[in-house]
């Protein structure tokens, strides 16, 4: 209110306004400096004693002040304390905590290694240290998963898959049985930002979504942000899935791998230069196609259907202040039918990062990021030929800074710029001697920029605030074709005019201001409340015709016809730990509103269509819900139970007659259970159970005949429901005997047996409506589903 008064435009009041601003700044930033005597910093890296991997999110607790910090994604921490004697406790889930006594009279560097805590059956040791990270951190709507835990849960066809595990979290819904596609809080799949070592992954699936591109052996840590998305992330509305690759064992050379029903994995890692450099290389290939070749049937044995991927990482420690990381991913899917038809696609990403410490308190990282996605379809049947090559490239730069100013303030700022080059490609269809039809889909280029600043401020023992914002900008660059549409028929837009944009011409610029805010208020030692608000702009989207993303679903940039999407999300939660932090529980509610939500028009024709933007309609969407989670992380029995109630709706003038309708992935109730139970020292059971009410679908309300064809008459879009979804998966992991070799190396091996969909529930992925061909005149509904149960077995080793 004061601000409003002072903002009257006169010189006198402008001065007053400036004074006011200064006061506000003082209040926010200087108060924490009051009464501070001499202070020193303690900083360093926390690592895994087994392999030297830096631990992400490990905590440092100061017993005297009851305060603490956590390590960043590079395992670095920094905190500031007045001179004196302290007891520090370094801890990480699944590791024995380390207690260190320090006498602080100068800045201190302290690298710590944590050892595994082995679960012993006889004495269930529950470490009594603070495990209340979920209570004290400001993070809301954020889920971290341990790769170790993911590996113990049942896996579809024996392939451990991080994307399928996150579908078991509250607020996350699956695109279908065995499908890696996921939807977060009523957001579409293209609203998920999936990062692999900071490089965005555009199509995270292998084999038509049955598997994800993330080889579990290369993954160190993953964090899913569903709300309260930090300022350093931008560009996607609904979630950020930040996946970090392992750095490679810096202690000794080791290899690990697995042999499964459909694929094999092998990882090699080790030090290159002692204490300076280590590497990791891990590969995976499926071999279903090798079995196909054994078939006597020519229609089968000439088929190709496999994928492979390769993750590599190299790090080099120049000195205490400078480190370099180089990470790469390359994966391909290859499908083919004899030599007449081939369909290949895949991602390649590369990141070069430089960590630099300007001082113990200023941590910085600079990244060069490259990502590439391509697909190729080729058909060759005698004189008839068909080819389609498509590619997408991103080249980006990023600089991130963290300033651990003092024990109450951590500032983060950074800058990011990405060049997008989307070339949906050229489609050639030709019949020798008859015709050649070439459809050249126009290239889509753009620049996306972002700068951000935020501060994490501890106002007092109870209240923690994070406030800041991001300024984003987007520019379309030629060459491009801009289409104007005649929109008189809302169902079918027809092109009236084409404007050709010259190469390198910037023809459209969008700006976005994205405030971000979170707070945590501690109620007592075991409970807290948290709240957050975020606004995000999304400048690139994917046109999708079905719930399941297809490899050829085209990504495109915001343009004159399709404006950027904007989300405002508020989320609030209550967090309570029970039984001495053994059981973490939380309730979160969220509401999000999406401006410029797009959806495809009825009967959209998207495949290889140059005029795809005429197939989309723009409106608004919203989603709200409540998420309940109970999670047990320690002990013999671990896992979680999650229940989500949510509702996702849209209003788009040209769709459904302008009436409100449900998003195709709208699911009202969703219950998931994921658990593992260590039954003996060697045997571990895992189980997943999912129950959700049917998702929104368009069902027929009648039929009619036209020209001898029976046509279904449909009700309003997504106004009906598919049957309820439920499924149980079970697994058992049996550790083999551990053998020690002479040089004290250990050979470990384990068997994993999984059964997907134990009781063979037929969960429809889609339903079709057509005339019964065996019984003309009679219409029927046919569902497509993944049959079950599907058993699998995998053997894993490490030595």
């Amino acid at each position, binding site marked *: 209110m004061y601000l409003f008064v002072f903002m009257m435009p006169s010189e006198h009041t402008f001065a007053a306004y400036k004074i006011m601003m200064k006061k506000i700044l003082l209040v926010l930033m200087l108060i924490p400096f009051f009464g501070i005597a001499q202070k020193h910093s303690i900083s360093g890296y926390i690592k895994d004693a087994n392999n030297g991997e830096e631990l992400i999110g490990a905590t440092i607790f100061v017993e005297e002040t009851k305060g603490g910090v956590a390590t960043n994604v590079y395992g670095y921490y920094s905190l500031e304390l007045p001179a004196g004697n302290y007891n520090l406790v370094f801890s990480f889930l699944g590791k024995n905590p380390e207690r260190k006594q320090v006498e602080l009279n100068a800045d201190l560097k302290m690298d710590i290694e944590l050892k595994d805590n082995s679960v012993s059956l006889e004495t269930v040791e529950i470490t009594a240290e603070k495990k209340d990270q979920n209570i004290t951190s400001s993070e809301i709507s954020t889920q971290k998963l341990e790769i170790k835990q993911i590996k113990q849960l049942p896996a579809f066809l024996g392939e451990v898959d991080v994307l399928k595990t996150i579908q078991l979290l509250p607020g996350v819904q699956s695109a279908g049985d065995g499908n890696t596609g996921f939807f977060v809080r009523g957001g579409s799949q293209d609203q998920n930002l999936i990062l692999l070592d900071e490089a965005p992954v555009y199509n995270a699936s292998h084999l038509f979504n049955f598997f994800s591109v993330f080889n579990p052996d290369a993954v160190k840590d993953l964090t899913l942000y569903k709300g309260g998305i930090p300022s350093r992330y931008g560009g996607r509305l609904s979630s950020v899935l930040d996946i970090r690759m392992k750095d490679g064992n810096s202690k000794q050379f080791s290899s690990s791998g697995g042999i499964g029903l459909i694929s094999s994995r092998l990882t090699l890692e080790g030090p290159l230069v002692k204490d300076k450099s280590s590497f990791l290389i891990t590969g995976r290939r499926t071999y279903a196609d090798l079995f196909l070749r054994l078939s006597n049937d020519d229609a089968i044995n000439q088929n190709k259907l496999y994928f492979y991927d390769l993750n590599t990482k190299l790090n080099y420690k120049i000195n205490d202040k400078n480190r370099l990381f180089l990470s790469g991913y390359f994966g391909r899917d290859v499908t083919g039918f004899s030599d007449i038809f081939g369909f290949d696609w895949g991602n390649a990403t590369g990141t070069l990062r430089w960590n630099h410490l300007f001082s113990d308190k200023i941590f910085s990282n600079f990244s060069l990021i490259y990502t590439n996605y391509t697909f190729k379809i080729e058909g060759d049947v005698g004189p008839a030929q068909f080819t389609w090559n498509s590619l997408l490239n991103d080249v980006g730069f990023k600089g991130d800074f963290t300033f651990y100013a003092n024990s109450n303030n951590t500032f983060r700022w950074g800058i990011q710029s990405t060049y997008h080059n989307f070339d949906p490609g050229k489609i050639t269809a030709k019949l020798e001697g008859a015709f050649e*039809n070439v459809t050249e889909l126009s290239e889509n280029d753009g620049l996306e920029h972002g700068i951000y600043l935020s501060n994490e401020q501890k106002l007092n023992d109870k209240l923690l605030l994070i406030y800041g914002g991001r300024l984003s900008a987007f520019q379309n660059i030629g060459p491009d074709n801009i289409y104007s549409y005649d929109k008189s028929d809302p169902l079918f837009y027809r092109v009236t005019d084409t404007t050709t944009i010259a190469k390198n011409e910037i023809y459209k610029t969008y700006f976005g201001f994205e405030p971000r805010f979170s707070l945590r208020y501690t109620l007592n030692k075991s409970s807290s409340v948290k709240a957050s608000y975020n606004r995000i702009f999304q400048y690139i989207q994917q046109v999708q015709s079905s719930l399941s993303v297809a490899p050829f679903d085209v990504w495109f940039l915001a343009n004159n016809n399709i404006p950027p999407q904007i989300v405002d999300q508020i989320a609030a939660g209550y967090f309570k730990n029970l039984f001495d932090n053994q059981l973490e529980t939380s309730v979160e509610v969220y509401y999000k509103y999406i401006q410029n939500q797009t959806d495809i028009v009825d009967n959209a024709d998207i*495949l290889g269509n140059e005029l795809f933007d005429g197939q989309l309609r723009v409106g608004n969407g919203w989603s709200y819900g409540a998420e309940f989670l109970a999670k047990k992380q320690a002990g013999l029995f671990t896992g979680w139970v999650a229940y989500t109630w949510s509702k996702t709706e849209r209003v788009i003038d040209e769709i459904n007659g302008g009436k409100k309708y449900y998003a195709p992935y709208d699911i009202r109730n969703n219950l998931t259970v994921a658990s593992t139970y260590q039954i003996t020292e060697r045997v571990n059971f895992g189980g997943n159970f999912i129950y959700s009410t049917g998702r929104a679908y368009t069902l027929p309300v009648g039929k*009619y005949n*036209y020209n001898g064809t029976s046509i279904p*008459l449909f009700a309003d879009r997504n*106004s009906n429901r598919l049957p309820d979804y439920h499924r149980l998966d079970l697994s058992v992991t049996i550790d083999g005997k551990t053998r020690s070799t002479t040089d004290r190396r250990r050979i470990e091996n384990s068997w994993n047996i999984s059964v997907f969909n134990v009781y063979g529930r037929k969960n429809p992925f889609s*339903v079709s409506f057509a005339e019964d061909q065996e019984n003309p005149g009679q219409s029927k509904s*046919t569902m497509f589903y993944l049959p079950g149960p599907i058993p699998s077995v995998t053997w894993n080793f490490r030595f």
Partner: protein
Amino acid sequence: MKKFSIIFLALVALLSGCQDDIDLELKDDQSGIMVVEAFLRNISTREAIKLTRTTSYYDSEPEELVTGALVTITEDNGSPFQLKESTNPDSLGYYIKPANFSMKIGSAYTLTISIDDEIYTAVSELKPIPNIDSMEVFYNDIQFLFASEFVPIAPGDTIYDINITYTELPQKGDVYLFKYYVNDTLASFYPRDFVYFDDEFLNGEVTGSVQQFPKIQADYGDKITIEMLSISPELATFYEVLFNQTDLSGNLFASSPPANVPTNISNGARGNFQVSQPTYKSTIFKPLFQE
């Protein structure tokens, strides 16, 4: 995109897992809605439009025919001409355009149907058609390896190509529909068998066009006739959508989500009204090389 979609069907068959009939509880039954099937050619034979009503989805009863409607056709701003209902008990629900009713190229025709205080209207323009200059029919030895119940092509099926040439008309927005006859009997009956051409990329050019008709049942010596009809772009879309929503329904990659096939009839009715100018060319089907 029809041909394009077919490329993916083999993949779909492989990846969509299993299929099973499912009994879904269908709410909000909307039977009894007017359905108009009106494709009137400008030729000197009797043509009919057919009026029916929608039925419940799982109904196996024969379609419900609409009798007693008043059906008229009006040229531009002229006076209405009534299409009389057939008196033949075998063709109830059909309303007849007499052989001597002729239409004018470039005129717009309004179809008006009134029954039980409800009035349904639709407008269609009679567009011109070029002459077919030449025609050839030959056997195409492409062996299709993809089998799918969605597409009327089975492995080993042969295809016959009907190759015609004509000069595309100068104005933009022309769409031609092709049907063929074997010994004067219509052989492409279902919309999935229709082939159409639009002039988006080849406006006004001399066009050599290969029209592939799968599953022609013809022998050497048969008379093959091609019928080329002028239609609106909307009707081409209508056929394409109809194919997507029926033959490709539920297909994971190739189809769009369930949605109603569009209509140009007012007042909530389904179906389509089109007036069309046909042109014909015939040839005798003979081997390319004398054996």
